[in-house]
């Protein structure tokens, strides 16, 4: 007998800033409003567009396009480089506004977050969800700037609330309830649903599911045994019925940083300096969370898009810049040169050093002390006031916008 699923009340508000980085740029610079604007991480002819204003999108410019390609479609496109400071400021403001409504607020990325009203004070919980949505939109304009817009989605779980938020972009406010869900699903394609990509769509098609309505009507065992072949089938069955299955938070599993090299003809020594710089950045992130790593992974892409990597597990956990840079260089010497992109990932993280006493103990303690002193000086006097001499001349390795995780926004010193 199928389990009886009771749909919870519509307590989830999903807030998503529209074309976030481009809109913030237009908020800052009124002369860019109403014009096609593209945001890139670097102002070079072949850079990747990471955000486009609605005016640019209307002309065919898409996120992920190369700037050369975008300029061919839209010669008047105005490019602006990312400025993490102001994006982080807007993120913090948005988070502060959201926290005025509930104790349970989770930022899903730099420009979107979830308010769970089940933990809201009574006087807020009793208010209409639409009224709260309108109020948040207005506060965004009042407290950040008049050009700021956001989508608000209301539903009983994160999945449906995100979908509701995507129904009418920009500046939408929609609610998905048990009553209107079928009507809304009837107007959508499978890939319009958050989390359904073309591969998942193909798996659904293989069992005769071609529309969101058919997906909603599929029985649980079909999803478990034929589509997902895992517990994910149970999750999809509940997710589609408004039950929350996406509220779990995970611990940090890895810390990484990558850099697209600033030239085709960099020597191994120049690339090495940039690698040391990346080691300093990941080291600072690791220490900011009071973590140690045991695994290190160095990877590269060459100019033919060939992927190479080496990794090692150290005998002892480490978190000093010295150790990370030493191990990273050791791995990098085994990789072919020249490279286009280089990255370091630290894994097997743990909250303690777990070291055995050894004959070199005094030297190791000194390295840790130097590293701690370096962090203190940089926190007091500013980013990279003191750093390893091997990373001199790497000013081009700037802090960029962290997509996805917002874990390190509070610790951005680079």
């Amino acid at each position, binding site marked *: 007998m199928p389990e009886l699923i009771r749909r919870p009340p519509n307590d989830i508000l999903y807030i998503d800033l529209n074309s976030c980085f481009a809109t913030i740029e237009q908020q800052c610079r*009124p002369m*860019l409003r109403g014009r096609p604007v593209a945001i890139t991480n670097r*102002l070079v002819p072949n850079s990747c567009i990471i955000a486009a204003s609605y005016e640019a999108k209307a002309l065919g410019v898409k996120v992920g396009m190369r700037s050369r390609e975008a*300029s061919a479609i839209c010669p008047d496109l105005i490019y602006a480089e990312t400025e993490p*400071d102001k994006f982080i400021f*807007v993120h913090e403001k948005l988070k502060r506004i959201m926290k005025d409504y509930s104790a349970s607020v989770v930022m899903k990325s730099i420009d979107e977050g979830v308010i769970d009203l089940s933990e809201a004070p009574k006087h807020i919980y009793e208010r209409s969800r639409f009224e709260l949505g309108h109020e948040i939109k207005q506060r965004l304009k009042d407290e950040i700037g008049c050009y700021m817009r956001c989508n608000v989605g209301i539903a009983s779980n994160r999945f449906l609330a995100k979908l509701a938020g995507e129904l009418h972009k920009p500046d939408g406010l929609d609610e998905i309830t048990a009553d209107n869900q079928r009507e809304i699903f009837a107007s959508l394609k499978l890939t319009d649903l958050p989390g359904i990509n073309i591969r998942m769509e193909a798996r659904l098609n293989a069992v005769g599911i071609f529309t969101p309505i058919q997906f909603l009507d599929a029985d649980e065992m079909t999803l478990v045994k034929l589509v997902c072949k895992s517990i994910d089938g149970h999750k999809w069955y509940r997710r589609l019925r408004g039950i929350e299955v996406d509220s779990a938070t995970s611990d940090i599993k890895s810390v990484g940083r990558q850099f697209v090299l600033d030239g085709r003809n960099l020597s191994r020594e120049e690339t090495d300096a940039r690698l040391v710089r990346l080691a300093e950045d990941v080291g600072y992130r690791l220490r900011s969370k009071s973590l140690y790593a045991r695994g290190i992974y160095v990877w590269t892409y060459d100019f033919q898009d060939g992927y190479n990597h080496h990794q090692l597990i150290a005998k002892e956990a480490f978190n000093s810049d010295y150790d990370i840079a030493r191990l990273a260089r050791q791995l990098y010497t085994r990789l072919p040169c020249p490279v286009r992109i280089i990255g370091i990932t630290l894994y097997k993280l743990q909250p303690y050093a777990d070291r055995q006493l050894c004959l070199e103990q005094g030297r190791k303690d000194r390295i840790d002390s130097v590293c701690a002193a370096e962090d203190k000086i940089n926190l007091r006097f500013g980013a990279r006031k003191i750093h390893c001499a091997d990373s001199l001349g790497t000013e081009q390795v700037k802090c960029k916008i962290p997509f996805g995780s917002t874990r390190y926004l509070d610790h951005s010193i680079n």
Partner: protein
Amino acid sequence: MNQNTYQTPLHEIIDVDATFSRNILGHCRPIAFRTKSGREVQISEIGLIHPRYDGLKTTFAFDVTDGSSDYRITLDSESLNWYLEFEGDRYA
């Protein structure tokens, strides 16, 4: 590629007229500024006010416009000097 002049830092010290009042968008609001060459810019709109941190030092960045061009002016909270950091292209 339309690389606008907003990307070339000027860091020119300027005189600024500003008001200080209780306001949700920030207590300090610049009204006009004058450059060393004597050019006076009347601010018609403030786009965004955001802080920038360099260690414990805070600099406040004001993105403003006079209606024909965008500017970024900054207030150094240690020296209390105002700077013109960027001037945008003029768009018809």
